[in-house]
């Protein structure tokens, strides 16, 4: 699935319950993160739940794996990874994630006042892109 398909899928939902049930489903399908990575070292700071993010650098692109102990956050992570995964650092830096989340109707998850840490996660992804 690419992001355009995802945006289309989200356009059919009529209420938050349907929308977030789908977010949960996406989280359930998230590629599992090896338990060995669920350590302080890979934790994203500034989240009310535990969030882990691990980059793998493959052929000039970055593949991220992530997870959270909160179900909704795991779903949002699945979407963020769909947006950013297997892209070059330049591509990563050019992505306007807020615009995509607005199209999905999920922008409330990226507001600075929402302390679910998803903004910190996006910042971390961009940091890895800079580092490369």
């Amino acid at each position, binding site marked *: 699935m690419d992001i355009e398909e995802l945006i289309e899928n989200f356009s059919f939902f009529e209420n938050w319950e349907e929308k*977030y049930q789908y977010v949960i489903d996406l989280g359930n399908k998230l590629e599992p993160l090896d338990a060995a990575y669920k350590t302080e070292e890979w934790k994203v700071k500034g989240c*009310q*739940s*535990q969030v882990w993010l691990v980059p793998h650098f493959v052929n000039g692109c970055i593949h991220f794996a992530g997870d959270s*102990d*909160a*179900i*909704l*956050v795991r779903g949002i992570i699945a979407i963020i990874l769909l947006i950013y995964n297997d892209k070059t650092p330049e591509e990563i830096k050019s992505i306007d994630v807020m615009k995509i989340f607005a199209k999905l109707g999920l922008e409330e998850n990226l507001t600075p006042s929402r302390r679910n840490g998803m903004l910190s996660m996006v910042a971390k992804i961009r940091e890895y892109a800079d580092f490369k």
Partner: protein
Amino acid sequence: MYDVYKIRKDFPIFDVRVNGKPVAYLDTTASAQKPQAVFDAMRRVYYEFYANPHRGTYYFADAITTAYERARETVRQFINAREAREIVFTRNATESINLVAATWGLQNIHAGDEILISEAEHHANLVPWQHLCEISGAKLMVFPVADDGDYIAEEFLARLNEKTKLVAVSAMSNVLGTMFPIKEITAAAHGVGAKVLVDACQFAVHYPLDVQDVDCDFAAFSGHKIYGPTGIGVLYGKAEVLEKMPPYQFGGDMVENVTFAKTTYADIPARFEAGTPASVQAVGMAEGIKYIERIGFEDIVRHEEELIKYTNQRLVEVPKLKIIGTAKNKGGVFSFAVGNIHPQDLAFVLNKENVAIRIGHHCAQPIVNRMGYNSLARASLGLYTTKEDIDALAAALLKAEKFFREE
């Protein structure tokens, strides 16, 4: 007759509709909503006689000085202190406790001494003492609570000895709701020559505090929790203890005589109130206190105790819900977990349903961990809380439980 619906009319915020619906505000433990009377009193100061207190010789300055000192007298009566000069205005309870740690603490706590706190303390009544121990070489001792969050006298007494110089304990836990027997604790502490600081932040909202009866040496609470504004707090200290304490901060208003060679300091409480005080906020806090007093603690306690029973009944209906902190003697604070659902997930659904609760470690990480969690959800009651608020909580929790139930 306690008419909670009439009382709610005094609180403008309850007219607010979010997405067209009212909000069930169940986070009074974090901060209370404020009645119109508080806003009116503060506005009156700004509109009619605002100036810097203690400094002027004109009408406004006199009027605000009088209002500020009357606020002190209102606080004195509220906690039954002997004298108004035993009331120090601070920014909040956190500053009150830091003030004691930085003045009395540095003066009186030395290597080899012990400071004894409960396991259920808020970070504000833990970290300042930990820091004081680090710099003084004293030892921080912690007495555990029971699995249900109850106080265990034996655990406290086992750690109380002639090395104990200070016992710092909450009168009511902000996580468990447990009420600690502060009078009994104070008597035992005085028996070994230790001073006692009571964190009264939660207790003072729900029950009458009598510092003479408790006989504690210090007590701290915040204005914003007792239906007053933010930015103002109280440190109570026995006059004979405060008098021996050095200043906390230095500057204007806390001095008697200043020369380049030597400065002498003002008497208490001015010695601890350096700089322009939060005079308007002090007036606002006094108004919050008067509001409580107009309703009367007797009726507030009856109302809240009935609600506590009702909340217990309704929460039991939520599958897999576990209340954390079930001491016999507890106030209107309900920390809970629902199965394995992350509190952040719970809070998301509750927010969609306009139910305002707190999640996280509630600035008391050690006790949340001790009860076996990293994060807990917490609903808390105030004098304006209704059964409908609790119904909204129960309905939203049922919805959340169903929403996140693993098929």
